[in-house]
């Protein structure tokens, strides 16, 4: 187990470094001069130089890169020129909001998707099954920003049940979380259904029945335990997906998370914040994957460090 985690951590560091380097390069390749964005069109060459020096943009790229890496090791990604504060601080301040949104979306996905999947598996090919499998496709086929606005118009404007924007209340998180979760509810249901059907056809299920184990226990104990493993993996990936996908939802719902922060930072060439946001997202993605691996490891007794 220790070796397993160590190996994964090693990989994670490589991946994080890669992502960091990638964003560093891309951000600087994208046309657009932060100094001009700061000063506007009237800036003189002298002013521009001054501002560039302030943000260390006048150093050669390799030096900026090395300084950047050095900074990362000290947990310092530089200051945001737009928001004033430390970029990492600003980003981390926003992270709980994104996390809340993702977690609520994940909970919604599980609460709705899991039972749906089990129900479908009970009667494959029947009406509910067809509805869910088509529904899951439709769910992924609708652009989330459109869906988000339609939901706002419906639930906030017409029905007045939920607030249109993030107001910090629980009701405020429901709409964005639901919009985020919707494409994946049917998806999870199909996954659970597939797993339940596949596992249900295995010999050990027959063994359990041959022992006289009641059907409910067969499904939820014998089969359930075995689909837990793939489902947990997928949920971990889903969470990573939510954190990344939250960008659009956050913009639509004015949700103060790192997604909207990042979009804003990109349009304004706020390098430090873009880098901090990417680092946060990447690290959380990697951490989630690591967590999933560990949970997977714990859930599936067949895994050894060798074959994991």
């Amino acid at each position, binding site marked *: 187990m220790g070796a397993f985690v160590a190996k994964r951590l090693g990989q994670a560091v490589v991946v994080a470094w890669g992502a960091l380097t990638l964003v560093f390069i891309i951000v600087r390749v994208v046309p657009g001069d932060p100094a001009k964005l700061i000063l*506007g069109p*009237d800036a003189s060459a002298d*002013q521009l130089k001054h501002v560039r020096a302030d943000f260390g943009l006048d150093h050669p790229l390799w030096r900026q890169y090395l300084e950047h890496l050095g900074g990362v090791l000290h947990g310092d990604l530089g200051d945001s020129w737009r928001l004033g*504060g430390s970029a990492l601080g*600003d980003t981390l301040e926003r992270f709980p909001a994104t996390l809340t949104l993702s977690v609520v979306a994940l909970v919604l996905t599980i609460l709705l998707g899991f039972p749906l999947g089990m129900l479908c598996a009970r009667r494959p090919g029947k009406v509910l099954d067809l509805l869910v499998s088509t529904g899951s496709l439709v769910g992924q086929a609708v652009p989330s920003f459109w869906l988000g606005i339609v939901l706002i118009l419906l639930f906030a404007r017409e029905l007045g049940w939920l607030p249109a*924007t993030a107001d910090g209340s629980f009701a405020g998180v429901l709409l964005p979380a639901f919009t985020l979760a919707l494409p994946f509810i049917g998806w999870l249901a199909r996954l659970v259904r597939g797993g339940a059907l596949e596992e249900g056809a295995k010999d050990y299920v027959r063994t359990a029945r041959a022992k006289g184990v009641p059907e409910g226990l067969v499904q939820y104990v014998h089969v359930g335990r075995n689909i837990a493993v793939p489902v947990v993996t997928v949920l971990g990936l889903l969470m990573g997906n939510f954190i990344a996908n939250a960008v659009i939802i956050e913009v639509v719902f*004015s949700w103060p998370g790192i997604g909207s922060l990042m979009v804003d930072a990109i349009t304004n060439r706020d390098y430090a914040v873009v880098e901090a946001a990417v680092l946060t997202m990447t690290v959380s993605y990697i951490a989630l994957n690591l967590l999933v691996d560990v949970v997977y490891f714990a859930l599936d007794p067949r895994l050894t460090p060798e074959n994991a």
Partner: protein
Amino acid sequence: GFGGGGGAPQGALRAAFGQPVTDLDPYNAATAVDEASLIVKRLVFDTLVRRQGDRLVPGLATGWERTNDTTWVFTLRRGARFHDGTPVTAADVAACLKRTRAVASAQTPLWASVTKAEARDDHTVVFTTDGPLGSLPVNLTLLFVVPAARVADPEQKRRPIGSGPFRVTGFTPSTSVELARFDDYWGGRADLPGISMPYIAETSSAITALRSGDIDLLWPIPPDQLPEVTGVKGVGVESIPSWTYYLNWFNCSRRPFTDPNVRRAMCQAVDLPQIVDRLFGRGGQQMRAPIPSTVAGYAAQEPWTYDPAAAKRLLAAAGLGRGFTTSMMWFDATGPLARELAEAMISSWADIGVTVRPQSIEKAQWLERLNSLDWDMNLQTNTVTTGDAAFTVGRLYTSKAHRMGYRNPALDKILASAAAAPYGSDRDALYGEACKIIWSDAVGLFPLTLVTGYGRSRRLTGFTPAPNNQPDLAAVRRR
């Protein structure tokens, strides 16, 4: 809520503006002329001079006088205090001027000729300029006063200390600002216990929030969305022509726009009355000068008549009888219906055989290209932040500025003398002259002034819409 810390007190006004507040430091270069942060800054900080309608009125300064061409003396109000309890002194004002001169920002041109500010005593500040600067009092409506000790304090970005009627209790950049009433304000305690300014990016969400009473005030409402708030119970709509207008510059240093007749032909080919009426309706006003009618220095010109045939003749005379191909750039967020306006104009030009490639690009790239004059036509909104012709006409159209490739020594001279002139009819005449040259030379096509639509809860009183999009929220009351 997330981030940001404390919220606004119960009963606070909830007001949503169309752009995010990213920073509250009055000397941060990035937000020096940013409308959204100016709205908040005007509540949190004081300025020596204030604008009321089209008059300048005392703020922290009770009075000022111009002792000679290059010297202005301002007398400060007694009893004004900062939010931390310390009194406001002339030394603070001097420090603030020093700071604003030190920071390179979009305001820099305003202060370029102000050489120094000295505290003669606690309540007298003397400004010295290196030439006559008639617009100093106007410019001072943008100099926010903070304690001398804090001019460069990074804390000012998030929890700034000012002497304005409200103090900051919570701030999440680009998300929300929370303000609470400052009880010791020299002008008397504000009526509202606080103000909360959330930023709502999506128009539909914002309008929904206004309709459902989640927010009390929303502006500017995009022209096409005005019908969604008019006639809704509990919501009133007010509008006012703003200092923001669309301009479409021709790159006068690039063929074929080097020829004024080609530019004139382009202006004549566009049916502006129809575009403004159909597209913007109540949300826009056709322009008759290169600056909005509400700006000081405005002088109405003869509008271009819509005459495609005449335009074609002009082109033919310029040797472009078969038309030509050119391009137009803009960035999407520049203003409401920017894309639609561009398309409508492009569509009109197609009728006279001019093919225009639309280029909707990112702001950052737009800026790059704008300054390097790497464009044929540039569509953008522009705001006369000070409400004075000097801010736009005086700044943009000089040969030295070289912003659209237009060079006219005669205009340069007029603008130089206008800049030096004190407020008054002479100055207005000079700017009028400038307007005329710019207009008839067709440096650009100036389609419309935006009319800001304010949607507000009917429970609000004391609210006055402002042309600069920065209404005085301190004066608002709630029933």
